[in-house]
């Protein structure tokens, strides 16, 4: 067993860190304050190849492993949680399902421009009545001739109005199982922005990741070509769950980055802030808090990296991804909260990064499967 990163991964981290410090960090506060989507940063990331890291080169990507991708989201999130989730949702939730389930034509048409960063991706599963209970979908798709007709709405969609390509889930039928219970058949579709009948609802005003574009998507007799069905008809629920396994590694990386960022800021702060005639870092309470924070961050990193490696080497990695997301998200919340506490009154002021990081961290315990869902996935594997 070897915990050393390869030289390639070390150099990739240097790249992501340099980019984050130079291009992302200077804008983080403004992005949060103004709630404006950082389009310029996305264009720079596209140019640098950050929007197709785990996509094979033949489809316009970088051909790197999931660990490299996780490190990218981690380093971006160290300085800006918004930027981290833009990359995560685009890559894990849109590129990945098209890469895994798409036909060759779909890959050429959609994955190539997505991986090159010419287009941005999003994923629509959640509905007002279908959050954790993804089976509660109301959006319907009916085949009429050569077209699927979509009706319904999706909420809380990351990259909502900014994306060009959307992976959307809808009910395409109802079947009765062996026990006589009716079960919805869900299918996945690729929908392009600008398709007649596809509009946007309200923009959500959020606690954190405020620069991320979170919108309601509305489908009213939205007609898409028959060939935009992604994967097999009726297999959409499996596609969604498998996609979320990968997505959880992205969000776990975002949470990890937020925790690391808050820890770094706090280490700098406690060396400079003086009370009772000495730096607050000289007090044992501060030292012990920092020791706990650093230990948990390290443990989270190991779980996240292990899940990323599992995605590359194992067919099924649901438990690894769930553990990584559960732990990293809870560590992010705990570490950012402690970071604010160690900053005292200044930590409550928006001028200080840790205030934003604490607000950004909360969502990592909620989206792409709440911490409770992760516990269900983990315990389910223990008791099966």
């Amino acid at each position: 067993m070897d915990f050393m990163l390869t030289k390639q991964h070390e150099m990739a981290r240097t790249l992501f860190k340099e980019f984050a410090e130079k291009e992302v960090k200077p804008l983080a506060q403004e992005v949060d304050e103004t709630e404006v989507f950082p389009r310029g940063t996305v264009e720079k990331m596209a140019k640098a190849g950050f929007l197709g890291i785990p996509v094979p080169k033949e489809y316009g990507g970088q051909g790197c492993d999931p660990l490299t991708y996780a490190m990218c989201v981690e380093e971006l999130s160290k300085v800006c949680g918004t930027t981290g989730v833009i990359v995560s949702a685009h890559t894990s939730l849109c590129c990945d399902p098209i890469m895994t389930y798409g036909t060759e034509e779909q890959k050429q048409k959609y994955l190539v421009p997505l991986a090159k960063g010419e287009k941005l991706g999003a994923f629509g599963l959640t509905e007002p009545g279908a959050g954790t209970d993804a089976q509660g979908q109301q959006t319907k798709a009916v085949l009429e001739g050569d077209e699927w007709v979509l009706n319904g709405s999706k909420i809380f969609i990351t990259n909502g109005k900014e994306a060009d390509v959307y992976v959307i889930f809808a009910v395409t039928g109802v079947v009765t199982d062996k026990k006589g219970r009716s079960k919805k058949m869900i299918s996945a579709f690729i929908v392009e922005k600008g398709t007649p009948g596809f509009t946007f609802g309200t923009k959500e005003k959020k606690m954190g990741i405020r620069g991320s574009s979170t919108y309601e998507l509305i489908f009213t007799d939205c007609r898409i070509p028959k060939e935009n069905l992604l994967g097999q008809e009726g297999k959409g629920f499996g596609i969604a769950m498998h996609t979320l396994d990968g997505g959880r590694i992205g969000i776990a990386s975002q949470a990890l980055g937020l925790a690391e960022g808050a820890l770094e800021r706090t280490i700098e702060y406690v060396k400079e802030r003086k009370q009772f005639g000495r730096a607050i870092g000289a007090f044992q309470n501060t030292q012990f808090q920092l020791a706990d924070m650093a230990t948990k961050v390290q443990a989270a990193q190991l779980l996240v990296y292990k899940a990323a490696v599992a995605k590359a080497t194992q067919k099924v990695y649901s438990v690894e991804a769930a553990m990584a997301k559960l732990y990293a998200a809870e560590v992010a919340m705990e570490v950012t909260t402690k970071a604010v506490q160690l900053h005292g009154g200044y930590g409550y002021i928006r001028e200080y990064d840790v205030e934003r990081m604490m607000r950004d961290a909360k969502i990592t315990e909620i989206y792409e499967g709440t911490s409770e869902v992760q516990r269900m996935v983990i315990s389910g594997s223990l008791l099966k």
Partner: protein
Amino acid sequence: MKIVVCVKQVPDTKGGVKFNPDGTLDRGAMLTIMNPDDKAGLEAALRLKDQYGAEVTVVTMGLPKAEEVLREAMAMGADKGILVTDRVLGGADTWATSQTLAGAIRNLEYDLIITGRQAIDGDTAQVGPQISEHLGIPVISYAQKIQIEGDSVIVERQYDDRYHVLKAKMPCLITALAELNEPRYMTPGGIFDAYNAEITVWGRANLVDVEDSNLGLKGSPTQIAKASDKVRKGAGEKVVLDPTESVEYIIDKLKAKHVI
């Protein structure tokens, strides 16, 4: 077109500077980066490659660890990397370094050689022009813009309050300023490709038309009398007074130090 770019791995000044007992830099003990002027030179070469099509070969002289800077260059888009490393080349000043690099470049075909203006560790700005001298080709230094026209290069050379536009037939050598451009980032995929690629490693035996007496510490006419890290200034004095009192206070201080 074939372009050779000379790059140097230099200490990252953010990591502090460490010296050997003889006053030379302890390069093994310091964090390193690609010298900023060289990186701009590499970017210029890569832009020429994008625009006109070119093969870009990056050459560096240094410790085996200097291989990293070649991988970085290749991750940015360079095609080949050549590391010139040998114990007998250690401790070289600009004369011995330029002799070594010229000896290595004599093995290569080239239309254009681009070096950085100067390295942030030595700040001499001598190596580029010296290489051109050894190879008997023209040099245009301090380039802030580079264009190709047929078999010639047209370069804007920075000069105090103006710039000169110079045209030279290739092959020639250009030294680049960091202000020349904003170097591109490596790509993630480029990094993995760079580590899969072969780096050519050359030693003393591969250098063409170079005398032993011109190599390494022994071949270096420069003698280092003493080298030291920057001496830190003491902490400044902070005084909080109203503006009128502040002015009087500052004037008194300046008078006391005989500045005014």
